């Protein structure tokens, strides 16, 4: 029988020893420092929020706790004892259960199979026993699960119940929930919270990862905030306010001294109205998005990861077909046009994904070959125009100061900053009228970042309309003219970047405050 009955004889120890203590945790992936000297501790019987922006290192930390990654440095103590996890099996054996944001369920199998998987003793499956235990937990925590239903036939909320049941079934008394509410309806969220509170009463420790501050304030006891892979601090929920948490998350405003040329007056370039995009599952990814973008203007787009930025960029580039709404480019609706037609009209889109190479570049090809990716088809004939691509590549390498052994060097072997310069250099070289760029400075050092800001401003002066999707709020505030904030696919505000503050943006990003259109 798994734990979940607080024991009398160990209650005393529990009060003293934290359930989890992680100290000095560091982990790097290649050149990316995902965690640096992180300190994190959770008591018995508490719900502890782990808060931080995208890329702050939350997922890495939790993957270390669940044995998926090995830390490069640091110690983990569990109930007072030092442990080393070599695989998820070790972590599970010691009572840690992870509920991943992207469910790790085997879809064609039943709930019962998924829940009991990896646990049984003996040769034969004892379905009856498993089912009765599932029923027991179902009743105890109010999670109705049909053990014989296939996961593929379940609603999202039910799948999550199966995930939670899976860790309970393994006797976990430490639960890690990675953004559990991101995919749930309000009713499902209420239901989830009831279950979590019930578990806390029984003495379980719960790590709750979320961006939604109201949920954190509502549900949790303490909060630890991470920023850029480091611990900012741990506070008691009773002693804090959402505004204070936002401050901890986003940090103090830093003056970056990015130049901001005045907005041009060449009229509207892009007019997006009532844009609605659904994914294959029918979930709304963009909900009634409306905004205008003028020539010679930089419109920033802020939002937590996955708030619809990608869908917005892809809709404009013609890669995604919106369900309804219109995208007017110079008064022509471009919805339904092919990506190539849109490129020809003068719309340039570049999206730097988290792995940097996923879209926009062909990793194994050299710089020259990548430079012609967008315009190779614009010339006649069946041959590539290599000489002109070479000339362009050479001039982009020189102008953007890309450090490379030569233009025949595969982009895969370039550093991140140089990879991004290649993309942006190519897009600018197309002399677009509208430049959509997402995460252009992702992972770049300061100097490379400034080169990119400078390039963007140069385009702005030429009258190019720029949609800049960014992560760093300081940069958005200084580079852009206006900032559009997305939260869960909805526009929660369009603000003037000269007057807005980081906290304003943070509140809008987490859906705590909505702001009207500040400027036209």
């Amino acid at each position, binding site marked *: 029988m798994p*734990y979940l*009955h607080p024991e009398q004889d160990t209650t005393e120890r529990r009060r003293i020893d934290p359930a989890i203590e992680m100290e000095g945790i560091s982990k790097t992936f290649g050149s990316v420092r995902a965690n640096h000297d992180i300190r994190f501790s959770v008591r018995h019987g508490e719900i502890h929020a782990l808060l931080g922006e995208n890329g702050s290192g939350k997922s890495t930390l939790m993957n270390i706790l669940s044995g998926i990654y090995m830390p490069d440095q640091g110690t983990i103590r569990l109930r007072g004892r030092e*442990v080393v996890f070599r695989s998820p099996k070790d972590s599970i*054996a010691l009572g840690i259960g992870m509920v991943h944001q992207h469910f790790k369920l085997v879809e064609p199998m039943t709930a019962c199979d998924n829940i009991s998987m990896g646990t049984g003793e003996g040769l034969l499956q004892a379905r009856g026993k498993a089912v009765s235990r599932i029923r027991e937990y179902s009743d105890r925590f109010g999670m109705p699960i049909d053990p014989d239903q296939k996961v593929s036939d379940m609603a999202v909320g039910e799948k999550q119940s199966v995930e939670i049941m899976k860790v309970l079934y393994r006797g976990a008394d430490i639960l890690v929930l990675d953004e559990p509410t991101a995919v749930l309806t309000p009713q499902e969220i209420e239901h989830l919270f009831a279950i979590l509170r019930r578990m806390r009463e029984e003495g379980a420790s719960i790590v709750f990862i979320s961006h939604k501050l109201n949920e954190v304030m509502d549900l949790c006891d303490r909060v630890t905030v991470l920023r850029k892979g480091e611990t900012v601090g741990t506070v008691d929920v009773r002693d804090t306010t959402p505004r204070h948490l936002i401050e901890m998350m986003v940090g103090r405003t830093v003056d970056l001294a990015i130049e901001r040329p005045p907005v041009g007056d060449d009229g509207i370039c892009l007019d997006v109205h009532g844009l609605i995009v659904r994914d294959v599952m029918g979930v709304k990814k963009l909900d009634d998005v409306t905004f205008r973008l003028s020539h010679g203007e930089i419109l920033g787009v802020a939002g937590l990861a996955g708030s619809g930025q990608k869908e917005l960029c892809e809709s404009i580039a013609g890669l995604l077909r919106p369900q309804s709404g219109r995208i007017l480019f110079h008064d022509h609706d471009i919805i339904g046009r092919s*990506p190539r037609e849109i490129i020809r009209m003068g719309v340039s889109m570049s999206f730097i994904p988290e792995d940097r190479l996923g*879209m926009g*570049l062909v990793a194994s090809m050299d710089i020259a070959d990548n430079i012609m990716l967008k315009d190779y088809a614009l010339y006649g004939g069946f041959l*590539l125009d290599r000489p002109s691509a070479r000339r362009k590549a050479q001039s982009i390498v020189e102008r953007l100061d890309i450090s490379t052994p030569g233009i025949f060097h595969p982009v895969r072997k370039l550093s991140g900053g140089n990879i991004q310069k290649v993309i942006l250099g190519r897009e600018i070289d197309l002399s677009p009228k509208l430049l959509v760029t997402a995460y252009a400075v992702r992972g770049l050092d300061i100097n490379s970042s400034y080169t990119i800001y400078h390039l963007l401003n140069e385009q702005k002066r030429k009258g190019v309309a720029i949609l800049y999707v960014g992560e760093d709020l300081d940069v958005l505030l200084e580079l852009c003219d206006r900032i559009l904030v997305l939260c869960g696919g909805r526009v929660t505000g369009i603000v003037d970047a000269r007057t807005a503050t980081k906290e304003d943006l943070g509140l809008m990003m987490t859906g705590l405050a909505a702001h009207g259109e500040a400027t036209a």
Partner: protein
Amino acid sequence: MIRIVRKEDMTGVRAALVRFASIVAALVVSMLIVWILGYDPLRTFGAILQGSFGSKFGILNTVVIAVPLLLAALAVSVAFSMKFWNIGAEGQIVMGAFGAAAVSMNLPVGTPPVVAILLSLLAGMVGGAVWALIPGLFRAYLGTNETLFTLMMNYIAIQWVVFLRNFLWKDPAAHGFPIIATIPANAFLPKVFGIHAGWILALALAAAAYFFLRSTKLGYEIRVVGESERTARYAGMDVRRVLVLGVLISGAAAGLAGAVQLTGVTHTLSESIGGGVGFTAIIIAWLSNLNAPAIVATSFLFAALKQGAMSMELLVGSPSSLSDVVMGLVLMAALASEFFLRYRLVREQGAKGRGPLAPPEAGTDRKEGS
């Protein structure tokens, strides 16, 4: 506990050393296996070298074996460049030979050889292309798994020729033997420097494939689609069109291999005209990193191994199937070397400076309730 870690790409001398070492290792293991199977490894390998490079006859034969390998490997490399796993080259070769046979046998008597040969080769390309197009269309429009589809198509092609040989095209002049008649002599490929002219075609196709993938728009699109269909769509490419055209080219090249084999070597159609070339070609293309010049060299080496093994059987009596043992092991070693070029093995530093894994008893306090 050993962990696998990605490392920076190895280049130049070190990479060459790793590859070379892996081939040497494969040869040593092959010798060991040859010895276990009861043959003298040194004599065997000596005989292989002697048979392939030791005489003009050996070299000429090596080239004859290399021609279909080269053509088919080039065919495969085009499909693989767009990550279309065409393992149906064998069937495309057979259908190419079928197309060439069908045309050459039905030309009016007295057709000039140039016309007969060109039409036969063209028919071969059409045969191979059609055979590749069927799975290609299903992949492009329905997403059907092309690996298994093309594999099945091989055996349908082979059975088709078996059927022709025993039924429709059974040669009445063969006194009941189920064979297909020889194609007319005006469709025979002429010999150039003692070898049928297929070698010129094969080298020309290698140059063309190199140029095609590097310098044409379609070749460029094929490479981009192979890297990422998303990126291709982002760049405005019509992925389906690229897939279908690429598959057609791949199938046509494999079909040409079959037509060349028919008009240059066998002069009669049989189901064994592919002889496993379509499969060996896949491995050649893969080992050569889909690079045309490397494919030329690898095809020649594999052909030398085969030719050497055949004469070895005559010279020292070791069975020629030993060449397959060597080939299989060299392939495995080459595949493994790619791993060691990209990853290194690290001893887990988990224990260093930290406590050992807490024993399961650490969890006793939480199990007491049970």
